[in-house]
């Protein structure tokens, strides 16, 4: 099963994970993921037919609340952590030409 993680797959995962990997990192990732998946495949031994997947340990339900502002305007405090800001907004690289 280890060959499932080939160059093409690593490329695809890099896109999903938004990571740019060096050649060395790609080789390492192939090896590490192959090994880990080989181990995780152990789960296949278990018959889980008819078992409902359990996402929350106690099966609690959605929690609803009124959509009310509770924490006031924290714009200045929040922007202090921004890598770049302009006119009270987060600044990002140009995304459209025109």
């Amino acid at each position, binding site marked *: 099963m280890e060959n499932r993680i080939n160059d093409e797959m690593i490329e695809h995962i890099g896109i999903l994970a938004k990571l740019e990997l060096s050649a060395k990192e790609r080789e390492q*990732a192939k090896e590490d993921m192959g*090994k880990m998946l080989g181990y995780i495949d152990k789960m296949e031994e278990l018959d889980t037919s008819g078992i409902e997947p359990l996402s929350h*340990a106690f099966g609690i339900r959605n929690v609803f609340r009124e959509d009310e502002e509770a924490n006031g305007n924290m714009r200045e405090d929040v922007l202090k952590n921004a*890598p770049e800001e302009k006119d009270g907004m987060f600044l990002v690289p140009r995304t459209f030409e025109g």
Partner: protein
Amino acid sequence: MELLEWTALELSAKIKTGEIKARDAVLAALERIEAGEGIYHCYITVDAEGALRRAEEVQRRMDGGELSGPLSGVPVAVKDNICTEGLLTTCASKMLGNFVPAYSAEAVRRLEEAGAVILGKTNMDEFAMGSTTETSAYGETRNPWDIGRVPGGSSGGSAAAVAAEECFLALGSDTGGSIRQPAAFCGVVGIKPTYGTVSRYGLVAYGSSLDQIGPIGRNVSDCAAMLEVITSYDKKDSTSINREDTDFTAALTDDVEGMRIGLPKDYMGDGLDREVREAVLEAANVLAGRGALVEEFDLGLAEYAIPAYYTIASAEASSNLERFDGVKYGYRAAEYEGLHSMYKRSRSEGFGPEVKRRIMLGSFVLSSGYYDAYYLKALKVKALIKKAFDEAFAKYDLILGPAAPTTAPVLGESLADPLQMYLGDIYTVSANLAGLPGISIPCGKNSEGLPIGLQMMGDCFQEKKMIRAAYAYEKARGTFGRPTLASGTDGAGRGVCAEGEGGKKSGKTI
């Protein structure tokens, strides 16, 4: 340094009677930090000035009768993935090297309300991903019992700080054993509460369905007192549970008469170090000697816990860590071409190898074509594991076992083989998958003098039974002892967290 040997509860009581001042306790802890940090490196950030200011304020409120809780005036440490308003919170990552939160986590807010004094932020594995505290971007922490060994992880800085007497109590977080395993390795007590007991508001998310904040302390009583303070129903965390019966300190009674305790054979077999096994069996005998009914049983599915855990935790991590994109906070790469390249470069340069490994694994198990075979399969295995525990708790009040298969490994040995490191979490991850409370308590030392941790797990919401048994065991065991503490420096000049700190209000980093 006698003051530093007191428990948190003893200290607070002595401040209340006026025997000492809150400021003296902070000064003593800071002095100990000054002496020990060159070697142990438990902290990423120490906020000496803030702690002293806060101690004066707490003292005034105690003198005025406004504050009287059991943690009033107690100097504590907070793991660096728990937000503290105005104080650097890095998650031990370059990604958040300059992040100063605009708000405090609910658990921190409650601690401060109770009069605890925050000394600083403790080292950890990057984004809590690791079992040794070696994946920290700011250098490793050393185990106070043997500085050639790791403190465990991911809350290694918190556990080591308690053991090295650089604080009286600490907050950690536990996604797959990150409170219990370092507590075991450092000879201290750690509690992972039932999922939903402590608000996750302000805890930087790793595996949201598994993460819980909990206490690490010198003994069971200190931990129970801290847990009582940080437990709350919080609308800011949609998974918070409105619990009753949370006066955990009321469970500090020396009585296990008739308590039914199960010892899973699955936890005592292959892969378990001989000396750890002997210590755990001895602890079981001690409890039996106090009237508990201890028996071995087959829990089942233990070998499937790690595969399910790493699938689920990595999937959730890949989703949770998408927020780190160089836009709103944290690291942004210096060079890029366009928005998408900025995202990719910032993430690639900001995250360390273990974090990338888990984000990639998580992205894969959630990807189209593999989702059913991995992620969904893991959720079904989780359901089976939960069922196995439900059946066990129909027969037993508590499940007893080791916290980890070995004692603390030597520094530098674990990261070379990630899979091997993951296998070390075998006894702890199930509690997270099933949402159960767990406690680790020192139950002996091996022939090299390294602490061994005993784990007790309770059914959901049964912390009190667990605390009662842990307290009774601790009484029977007697004093565990302290490591011989060193001071000075190892000459390596480690632990400098200087990434882009300029101009921000933050603590002194050492």
